[in-house]
């Protein structure tokens, strides 16, 4: 083969490769539709005193208060929206009122629901910290858990629980009785409706259920009847992780705001990504680091009714507050 022919083939290959990359970028890397959020403030450092954390792993905001799972300290800490410490409750243990690695949280009907990873249960507290009841126990049967990571509550009181090691999402009545599940117990899967260590759940105002499908690096959505609707995260949402817009690197938290926008804690990408209800990428914020507006593994996210966003910054043992750049 002549050198000029080899050169031509090489040139064509380079062009084809460039076209493939450009096509892939256009197809799988969306551009932002909204301006990024602005960092407001941060509070906390490693420790066990009030306002200090040892692994913050969950966060929820309601009625002007920020509730944080302070996991290794086995407690919930409560702050006002400016980070001023208000109260705390719980200590490590497995009796009523004690906590075994509390994870993602939710509040419904003036009650706080805490997924307890070590105790295989959901514990319900009054917002003042009064322990009220325990739902679930260790196991793989209906209504049992193996390291629950997150919980959401529907208007009728039904619970939706991300049952991490059981590779499923369970729907339970308020008394803990089993209603149904998504995913096959103990079996990892990549297809629609299957999970790879689900970490959190959130319910939209219309009843749509969002699942943080942790190690599949994607979000899955199910309608209020339980039917699979959509999934997203990287090409074909099939466990292809990456740092680009709309891609994830382990999803550890999901929440929905009043306008049905979906906020996702993108753990290894050290950022929060925001999507519309129709999975359109809107914006993202955060980079890796220890400075203001940076994260060392963003693990959980909460949004107020007026759009302020609070993030549990796991590795930096702090909470960050962000708001939209109007």
């Amino acid at each position, binding site marked *: 083969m002549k050198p000029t022919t080899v050169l031509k083939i090489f040139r064509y290959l380079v062009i084809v490769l460039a076209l493939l990359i450009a096509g892939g970028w256009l197809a799988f890397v969306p551009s932002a539709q909204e301006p990024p959020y602005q960092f407001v403030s941060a509070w906390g450092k490693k420790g066990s005193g009030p306002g200090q954390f040892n692994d913050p792993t969950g966060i929820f905001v309601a009625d002007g208060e920020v509730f944080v799972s302070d996991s290794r300290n086995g407690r919930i800490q409560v702050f006002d929206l400016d980070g001023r410490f208000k109260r705390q409750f719980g200590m490590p243990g497995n009796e009523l009122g004690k906590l075994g690695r509390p994870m993602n949280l939710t509040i419904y009907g003036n009650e706080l629901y805490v997924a307890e*990873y070590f105790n295989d249960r959901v514990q319900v507290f009054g917002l003042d910290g009064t322990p009220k009841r325990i739902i679930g126990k260790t196991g793989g049967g209906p209504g049992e858990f193996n390291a629950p990571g997150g919980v959401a509550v529907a208007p009728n009181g039904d619970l939706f629980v991300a049952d991490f*090691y059981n590779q499923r999402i369970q729907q339970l009545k308020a008394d803990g009785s089993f209603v149904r599940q998504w995913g096959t117990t103990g079996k990892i899967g990549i297809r629609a409706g299957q999970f790879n260590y689900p970490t959190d759940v959130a319910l939209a105002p219309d009843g749509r259920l969002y699942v943080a499908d942790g190690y599949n690096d994607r979000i899955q959505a199910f309608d209020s009847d339980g039917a699979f609707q959509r999934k997203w995260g990287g090409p074909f949402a099939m466990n292809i992780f990456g740092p680009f817009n709309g891609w994830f690197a382990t999803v550890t938290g999901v929440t929905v705001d009043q306008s049905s926008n979906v906020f996702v804690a993108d753990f290894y990408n050290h950022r929060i990504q925001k999507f519309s209800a129709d999975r359109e990428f809107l914006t993202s914020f955060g980079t890796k680091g220890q400075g203001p507006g940076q994260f060392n*593994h963003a693990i959980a996210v909460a949004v107020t009714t007026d759009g302020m966003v609070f993030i549990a910054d*796991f590795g930096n043992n702090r909470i960050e507050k962000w708001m939209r750049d109007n």
Partner: protein
Amino acid sequence: MKSFWQRTTLVLGLVLMSVSALPAQQAYKLRVDGLACPFCAYGVEKKLNAIKGVQRIEVDIATGIVTVTMAEGATLDEATAKQAVKDAGFTLRGFEPMPATHTP
């Protein structure tokens, strides 16, 4: 008749001898890759904690080193540790006995 001080010395000596005769605490250094996420690290910790005789577990997320300290006289074999780590969804990359660090 022995004096008070002689008897006290004898008792103290016996106490010291019995303490030194207690079996030593054993610890193990386990290397597990990919432990940066607490969902993973807590999983390893939870499975290892379920093993009989395990007294304390320390997970260094940054290095992937898990230190398991056993109760007095208890030991941990590699196969058991390997299974616990596997149940947590990980692979055991290293297993090394080491002296326990005594803490109150």
